[in-house]
């Protein structure tokens, strides 16, 4: 009927319950020392030891070919692992970008040498990747970026600045988008290329930026004649825009776009019981949230099914991301509505710590990965407006 979007049902078969139980058992153990503040970080929690352990268990690069360190499991199996990690608020940040984005990008368009060199390291949880798109002058209008790649003997020289690069200071590699041809004013999205950059390269300076929670997870990176060899070009020269956009469909569609604050929901049930306020209001609020979670999960699974079938559901991804981030942003408010907790952060009180962290971080959910306004612009265009 409506052709504006399409969400065919895609279900997780019961056969995967065994895998699910395995992940749950692992997480029950691993989560022992996590504070509410830690759990609130969800997929932005960075813990290399944790990622190595997840890699050892074969839960990174799950769908990739064995030849590249992958495990040739299904997209559904990967989804089960990922959603269990998110439900527990596990610190998956050190392998998240590599597993979700950089690895799949290389698998699709990377050179054989890149696949052999990087994919096994991502899958084992050893190599951490970050994404170098945004610049001081180019946020939503990414195509206006100015950082430049200049052809030199045996490779390119990179100059310019990247900003908001999550965990650059802790990561090993970046896939960065640079202007390899023309100018920002005239050529816009034409003439951009993607490079695989070793963050230890000389001429590269990483400056952490402290965010409003007091932590420094994102960074500004200055490139001063950073040399990258020929083989660091990802995909094709000057095709970086289309490549980066295809990558974004993956970035925007996963369960991480609706589950970032999920652990608050079960905690709020405990809180309501403890306070003796399991009343109509709290029941209604929790019921509404539950209906949203189930619906968003259905949407997210449907997109997974479409991606697995080789489609590129960009419209559905934008739509689901906007709904999903709104839901994530709603949960700390829900907690405020059904509990009357004082605005204090009490060490050891999981809810107070998680709530404090999330109240301060949820505003960024509708910025990162493309802002709400940009999502709505994409949707409107897809609907035939403009």
């Amino acid at each position: 009927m409506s052709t504006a979007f399409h969400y065919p049902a895609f279900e997780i078969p019961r056969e995967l319950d065994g895998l699910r139980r395995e992940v749950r058992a692992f997480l029950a153990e691993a989560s022992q020392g996590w504070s509410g503040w830690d759990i609130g970080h969800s997929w932005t929690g960075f813990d290399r030891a944790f990622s190595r352990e997840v890699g050892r268990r074969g839960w990174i690069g799950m769908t990739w070919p064995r030849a590249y360190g992958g495990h040739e499991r299904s997209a559904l199996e990967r989804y089960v692992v990922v959603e269990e990690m998110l439900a527990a608020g596990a610190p998956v940040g050190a392998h998240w970008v590599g597993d979700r984005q950089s690895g799949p990008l290389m698998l699709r368009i990377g050179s054989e040498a890149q696949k052999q060199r990087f994919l096994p390291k991502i899958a084992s949880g050893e190599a951490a990747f970050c994404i170098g798109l945004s610049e001081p002058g180019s946020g939503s209008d990414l195509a206006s970026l100015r950082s430049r790649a200049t052809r030199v003997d045996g490779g390119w020289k990179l100059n310019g600045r990247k900003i908001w690069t999550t965990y650059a200071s802790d990561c090993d590699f970046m896939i960065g988008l640079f202007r390899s041809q023309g100018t920002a004013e005239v050529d816009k999205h034409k003439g951009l290329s993607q490079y695989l950059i070793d963050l230890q390269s000389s001429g590269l300076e990483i400056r952490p930026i402290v965010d409003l929670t007091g932590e420094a997870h994102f960074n500004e990176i200055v490139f001063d004649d950073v040399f990258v060899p020929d083989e660091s070009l990802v995909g094709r020269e000057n095709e970086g825009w289309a490549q980066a956009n295809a990558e974004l469909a993956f970035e925007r569609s996963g369960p991480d776009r609706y589950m970032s604050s999920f652990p608050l929901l079960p905690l709020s049930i405990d809180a309501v019981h403890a306070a003796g306020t399991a009343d109509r209001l709290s029941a209604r609020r929790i019921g509404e949230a539950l209906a949203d979670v189930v619906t968003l999960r259905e949407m997210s699974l449907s997109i997974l099914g479409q991606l697995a079938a080789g489609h590129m559901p960009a419209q559905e991804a934008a739509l689901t991301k906007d709904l999903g981030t709104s839901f994530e942003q709603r949960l700390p408010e829900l907690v405020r509505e059904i509990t009357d907790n004082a605005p204090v952060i009490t060490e050891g009180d999981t809810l107070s710590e998680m709530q404090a962290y999330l109240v301060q971080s949820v505003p960024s959910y509708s910025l990162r990965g493309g802002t709400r306004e940009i999502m709505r612009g994409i949707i409107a265009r897809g609907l035939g407006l403009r």
Partner: protein
Amino acid sequence: MSRDNDDIAGPLGDQLARLFAKTVTREALVAAEHNVFDAALWNEISEIGAALALAAESVGGAGLAWAQADGLLQLLGSQLPPVPLGETMLAAWVLGLAGIEAPAAPLAVAGALLQIDGDGCVSGDDALVSWAPQAQVIVAVAQGAGARQLVLLSTLDAELTPQRTLDRLPAARARFRGARPLQAVAAPAVLGETGLLAPLAVLRALQLAGSLSQVLALCIDYANTRSQFGKTIGKFQAIQHQIAELAELSAAAQVAAGYAARQLDGGDAAAAERGAAVAKIRAAASATRGAAIAHQVFGAIGTTDEHLLHYHTRRLWQWRDEAGSDGWWAERLGRQALAAGAAALWTGITASAP
């Protein structure tokens, strides 16, 4: 639920869509609001076999699953045929599950749980039964000592008090005092504590989703046509973003209703009720905000009697509260979640063993 059924659902949906496009005129919508039953439309629908689409093949139906008929049921909300087709399909489905052939007539469905005594007589009250004034038979579930019964009741045995509603379609409060059912059998296992309220809520959610998708299409069309300040209003970002939000709401309603349809097909009462809750909560919330957006986009013309928009928005406001409002279902779902405890929340969502 065989593959062949998908091949039936498609053509049946196409046939209905063509029929509705031809017959659901403004005059037809107005006539229905004046209590005129569209017998011609009903006859055509019956000839196509749509009323029995969900009924088992063993009782003469097409045996479609809810999930297969999902698009077809959404047509009832997008094209608004002013006849109780959804109710009749639902009734024929549940009767079929109980091995009963549905009467060849428009049927009404009572969502409220009635009581049945030792002599097999039914009592109880349903505050709002859509189409009851024009149906000869009401299908209901009645609670007896221990077991629940699926009952067929004659509207002649009911005390019907017509009710005015926002959609202005025939509806009545139905009271039964010791009415002897035309037929009574054990209620099928898929009907849980809430009886027929759950499938009725799923039907309303599908109708809401269908209506929202049509409202979205109307808004897009209008935004690309209406001009102010020398350009179509669809060029204004404020309008674009509201319509984008409407698309999100419409998609969410559609997905939630489709999810609920699959849970009904699964046959497990608890899952079916949970699906109904999810669908009704989500679709009703989408309807609330969606109707507001549509009226904002359409400006003054959209608030007139002459314009067709209100045939959708009045139904959105009506259906969101029928068969349990979003608030009612949310409270029920929330109480269950509170009772099950924090640890059961995620296992419940993933429908998996702990």
